[in-house]
């Protein structure tokens, strides 16, 4: 997948915040605290590009996706999609825009209504948006099934008659029904087995080429994200800590969290996995109710100094198109020496062929 670097900006996310209030009391429902799920996130997405969004559970990546799709109302900030600020539009005003911005969900078992036939599931968006009469919709559904690699004969089946990978294809067909420009895929392959995962990734890849789609691809599997993305944003506790072109992120991580995340991924190569250094982060991700002051990563960071607990580092440039928020950014030499994956990615594939 190659993006046109001069492509038009399709989506601009500006200072988006989403806080969930925690209320107590029966009548007054007084707000006692807030979960800072997404805190001041900004980025741009060009048409035809794939942005990978990675981070651990609870870092706010799914919340961010739902804010962009306006499945949640924002606490503050704006989302400019296709030149229009959609962050404050009413439900009714949003409706014509929703067709251009669709989502594919994680769980292929929970995201399809078990009582509806596949044909109905895929045609619902067409009917709601009044796209064509009955026979046109019918034809369109059959075409969509073919596009995602299912047989058009399957329109009258129920979701339970399909395997996980096939269900995810149905989810993709539903998302494609209204010819969207942007598809937000929230962990679309996490629930699938490896061999099926590769099939669905290749499908998404082909669809992007054929239909010139723009993707936001959320996953916690860093290998998958590297494979599909042009650029990658790493989130930690509601904030983007690093954004970079995909290959660059793996070769030269600047933020210590990215470095640790990469080194934690098990590599299916016994020798390599013994050689490289494993950075094991201590403890758990802190609670987003009371995130640590200063840099949110500092309690787990091995490079942290006094300033890190005091001042929040801004997201600044560390190379072309490569932003990171850290007081002690990893320099090139340090990243190579410490990470190991940088050299691994650049070196020739180890001998594993018979």
């Amino acid at each position, binding site marked *: 997948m190659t993006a046109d670097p001069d492509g038009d900006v399709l989506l601009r996310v500006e200072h988006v915040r989403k806080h969930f209030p925690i209320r107590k009391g029966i009548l007054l429902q007084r707000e006692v605290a807030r979960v800072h799920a997404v805190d001041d996130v900004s980025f741009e997405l060009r048409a035809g590009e794939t942005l990978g969004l990675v981070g*651990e559970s609870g870092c706010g990546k799914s919340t961010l996706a739902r804010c962009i799709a306006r499945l949640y109302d924002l606490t503050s900030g704006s989302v400019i999609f296709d030149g229009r600020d959609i962050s404050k539009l009413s439900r009714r005003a949003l409706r014509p825009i929703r067709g251009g911005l669709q989502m594919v969900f994680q769980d292929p078992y929970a995201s399809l209504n078990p009582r509806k036939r596949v044909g109905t599931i895929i045609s619902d968006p067409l009917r709601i948006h009044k796209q064509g009469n009955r026979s046109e919709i019918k034809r369109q559904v059959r075409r969509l099934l073919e596009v995602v690699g299912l047989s058009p004969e399957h329109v009258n089946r129920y979701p339970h008659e399909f395997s996980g990978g096939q269900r995810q294809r149905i989810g993709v067909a539903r998302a494609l029904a209204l010819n969207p420009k942007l598809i937000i895929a929230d962990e679309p392959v996490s629930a699938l087995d*490896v061999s099926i995962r*590769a099939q669905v990734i290749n499908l998404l890849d082909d669809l992007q080429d054929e239909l010139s789609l723009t993707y936001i691809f959320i996953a916690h599997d860093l290998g998958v994200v590297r494979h599909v993305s042009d650029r990658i944003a790493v989130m930690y506790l509601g904030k983007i800590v690093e954004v970079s072109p995909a290959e660059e992120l793996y070769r030269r991580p600047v933020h210590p969290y990215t470095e640790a995340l990469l080194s934690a991924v098990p590599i299916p190569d016994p020798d390599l996995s013994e050689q490289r250094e494993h950075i094991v982060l201590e403890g758990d991700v802190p609670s987003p109710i009371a995130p640590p002051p200063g840099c949110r990563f500092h309690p787990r960071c091995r490079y942290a100094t006094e300033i890190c607990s005091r001042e929040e580092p801004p997201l600044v440039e560390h190379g072309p198109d490569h932003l990171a928020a850290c007081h002690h950014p990893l320099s090139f030499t340090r990243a190579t020496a410490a990470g190991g994956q940088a050299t691994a990615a*650049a070196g020739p594939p180890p001998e594993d062929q*018979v």
Partner: protein
Amino acid sequence: MADPLLEVRNLKVSFRTEDGTVQAVDGVSLTLAEGETLGIVGESGSGKSVTMMSVMRLITDPNARFEGQVLYKGRDLMALTQEQIRGIRGAGIAMIFQDPMTSLNPVYRVGWQIAEQIQAHDKVSKQAAHARTIDLLKSVGIPHASERVDDYPHQFSGGMRQRVMIAMALSCNPDIVIADEPTTALDVTIQAQILGLIRKLRDDFGTAVVLITHDMGVVAEMADRVAVMYAGRIVEEGSRRDVFYRPQHPYTWGLLGSIARLDRPKPRRLATIPGLPPSLVNLPPGCAFGPRCAYRFPACAQTPPLTDKLGNGHLDACLLDPQAKKDARAGATPPELVEDAT
């Protein structure tokens, strides 16, 4: 070779269902030596969990039928009574389950749950069991163990709960720990912590580990030997290096090829295994992977035995001759498919 600690001989497990007989495990034989780590990999439904659950005699479904032997220190576990097997569970062979959210009882304090097991196997006082529980929680890296021992499972994070599960598994000093997808529900950084912990405890106590997983990366990091399962059978088994560097079965090739890897230049497209795993109801004879295999030939209509074709303890169930495999592997990834990562 000394007598293995655990030996599974031609284990078959089938379930009677409305649609017919599901042959979940079809003639699996395995050995586990003392202190060894065996990785069992395969996709959902390949029978890896059912195999180990059967070893522990944890399948109580009245529709299940078992055949074969499971020898633990020379005793056949399949022939024991429920009473006898309870003496082995926990004390001889312990299990760590995938989901730490559901495998702890939410209404009991974690310390109570661990102490209960200690008291069930050893004649010790309540106080002694409590003290041992605190030591165990300390050894699995739970901070402030003496206070947290009285917490309920919901007060722990996912990674911490998995540590509690590990403490529980270790409470009676078992010879074997069976870990069924111990890190699948966890984030990568927490996974790294837990894998490190399992590795450390294995080295400290000399426990043999059976690690069930679908993640080839985890196996590469942890296992001494690897068994690859497909449709209820082992299709390949060998040392970790043999399986990863000289895989012999086309299914293993596919499995290794379809991973998006961080340690290689990015391929333009991921290799895929076409089709779906077969239904295990009335599986036809022959190689179960045959219908998805690019190297299928007429002989595949017969069920291939798991044999040592190379004479070095690296077993595989593929009828292709080693030279043909070598050629097939060499041609499997044409260099032009690999996108230059620069």
